[in-house]
Structures are given as structure tokens and as C-alpha cells.
């Protein structure tokens, strides 16, 4: 159950983290 829990959170967390990073990259242009 614990392994499944970690796997599922990674499955949704990785794409979300990627999207957030891409957005932050773009957002930095505002302060350049």
C-alpha cells in the first residue's frame, strides 16, 4: 500500500512540478 501511495503521488506530482518549473521560467522574464 505504501509503495502504491508513493507511486501515485509521484505520477501526479512530477508533471505538476514540471508545469510549475516551466511557468516560473517564463515568469522570471517579468523581472529581467
Amino acid at each position, binding site marked *: *500500500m505504501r509503495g502504491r501511495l508513493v507511486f501515485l503521488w509521484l*505520477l501526479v506530482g512530477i508533471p*505538476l512540478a514540471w*508545469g510549475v518549473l*516551466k511557468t516560473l521560467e517564463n*515568469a522570471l522574464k517579468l523581472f529581467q
Partner: protein
Amino acid sequence: MTSAFLDRQSTVAGPGFNRFLVPPAALAVHLSIGQAYAFSTFNLPLSRLIGISQSAPGDWTLKELGWVFSIAIAVLGSSAALFGRWVERVGPRQSMFVAAVCFGGGFLVSAVGIHLHALWLLYLGYGVLGGCGLGIGYISPVSTLIKWFPDRPGMATGMAIMGFGGGALIAAPLSVLLMKHFATAAANGVFETFVTMGVIYFMFMMVGVVTVRVPADDWKPAGWVAPAQPKKLITTANVSVDVAWKTPQFWLLWGVLCMNVTAGIGVLGQASPMIQEIFSGKVTAAAAAGFVGLISLFNMVGRFFWASTSDYIGRRNTYMVFFLLGILLYASVPTLGHLGSIPLFVAAFCVILSMYGGGFATIPAYLRDMFGTYQVGAIHGRLLTAWSVAGVLGPVLVNYIRQFQIDNGVPKAQAYSITMYIMCGLLFIGFLCNFAMRAVNAKYHHQVGGKPL
């Protein structure tokens, strides 16, 4: 066998099931359907299907393409209202599956429309079919999460609805990446991107379908005891969906959501030109895109932050903060513009947009407090019609008032001042609706055999 798997009864969790498996299941659905907010990424490429590098005669116009998103959002609100009771009856697994078929299928039908250059197939595919996927998918996990987290309903639903905000952050770069990958000298890769995204989103939503479980009727979190002294604005009774919408509380909450969303959505749609016009010559188009990204991020984070905070300070107080702080911030925007302070201007909008997202994410828990858990998903579905109304009202107010001002000789940099004050007025109406909130009269409570459910 398939229908048995989708059946509500097969999703009842056995003893020892970890309830923290349910939020990622809900997130898998919301992160997918949140793609809708990034649909504008396709507008330009779709308007150049024939001309490739620029629009050619026979290409679809941006105005015609704008309807795809509008239809999808209108269908989202109506399908959530129409299918809410069905979602409650069949349970989260079946409704998430239908949402996955509709949303993924919507992309595939639209891809056929792109291939045949038939715009009506885009309206039907992404707009109607995809819109049904959006509406059903949005409400599917809400009541399940509330039942799994009676101790933290705000946090649980906030987590899922945060996914809807986060979906756009993933979809925008993903769409660009895929279109770049599939582009050739003869085509810009939109057709292949739609097919790929349809398949990816269907599979990702299926993760939620397979994982989701409902708790057994008598289940409670280990060690959790319902408060002995119930709070004034948290009911222990239940109200059915057909009765709920006849109560003043439903319409007050409808007003609360509608005003909060109207104030935020108009700004969200106009954020890029607005910052460029107010700080003319100081903010480039690329920097404005950064501003849009930043406020989208706060829109997402606000969903989790404010909904979780509402578990501690109460739902009514949370909306009081939204309305009072919102009025203060909107009223300060014209001054910040005159002062030329970009950091303060950006900070004000980051907080405003966090409260816009927070408004969406806190409303399911507010509904649960007022009407109980019995048909909260269906009631939430009907309340989402406020979103459809706000989706039209917000952009119309911002765009038309701005244009009216410019037509009457007001400089572009100052054309938003009146709009901001009108937003303050809308938030004040929302404040009054929230202020008037009282517990639902006992005559509306659902009874079985003369006893409260």
C-alpha cells in the same frame, strides 16, 4: 464485467485502505481537465492550418475559434448541473470513466475536424463532448473526498481543485512541445498533437478511475470523533439537491461564487494587455506573458492554501477575507499604476488571483457545511452555473468598459481604473451575500421515515 468494475459497490474500500490514495486519483482527473485553461495555445496554429506560417484565405479566424473554448465552458457548467445527481448515484469511478471518455474523445473528434477542416467538429468535439468531460470530471471526486476527509474537507477538495488550476501549467508547455515535435514543412502538427493529447489525457484519467474508492457507510478516520458541540454554520443534517436549490442559502452561495469569479476571471483573460497598457513602454510582451504565468501559479496555489485555511478559520470567514481584502487590493490598483510600481502591482494581482482560485476550492466545503454530505456533489454541480454566468460577465465587463473608456478619449493606461472600481462593487455584493449567510432551516432537512438522514 466492465460494468461491475465501474459499479459503485465495487469501489467501496476495504479495511486498512489508505485514504491518501484518493487525492491523487482526483488530481489525475483535475490535472487533465484543467487543460481547458490552456486551450488558447492552439488558437494561433488552428488559424493557420492552410497557410502554415500565416493565415491564408479559407483558414479559420480567431473569432470563430474563440467559440470552441466558450462552448466548452458553457457545457461544463450545464453538464455539471444536469449530471450532478447521476454522478452521486453511480459513484466516482463510473462518472470519472465517462469524463475520461468524453474528454479524451473530444480531442479525437476535434482531430478529425482538423483533418477534414470542419470547424463544426471542433465545436462538437472539444466544445460539447469535451465540455461534458469537463463538467462531469470536475464534480466526480468532490463528494467522495469530502466523505474521506470529514476532519479536513477544505484541504481535501482544495487539493483536487488545485489540479484544475495546475492542469493549464502542464498543458501549455506540453502543447507547444508536441506541436514543435510534429511540425513539418507541410503541416504545423496540431492534428497529431490533438490525437496524442486525447490518448495521454484518457490514460491519465484512467489512473484516477482505477484508484478511486468510496468509504464504507460507517467509516470514520481513525481516532476522529465528530465535534460534540456542532458549530452554528456546520450542519449535522442533510439536504437533498432538489430541496437545496430552493433555499436562500443556495442562492446566497451562488452569489458569493459568481461575484468572486466575475472579479477574477475578467482580469485573468485581459492580464497580458492590461499590464502592458498600464505600464506602457516598461513591460514587454514576453514580460507580460511572465505575468500571466505568475498569476496562474498563484491561482493554483491559492486553491490549496485558502481551502486548507478554511478548515481552521471557517468557510464564512475565509470568504470575508476574499471580499474585504479583494476590495482593498482592487481599489489600490489604479494608484499603483499611477505610481509606476510594477512589483506592488504584480503582488496585488498575485494575491487577488490566489483568492479567485481559493473561491473555487473552498465552495465544496462551504456547501458541505450548509447542506451536509448526502448530495453535496450534485449541489456543487448546480452551483457551478454561477461559473458559467461569471465566465460571460467578467470578460464582458472588463473588455467593454475598457473599450468604452478608450472611445471616450481616456488614455489606455488609465482605461482600467473604472473597471477596478466596478470589481470592488461586485465584491461588495459578494460580501453582502456572505454576510447574510445563516444555517439552513430544519424544515429543509432530508428525512427518512420521519427522522433526519
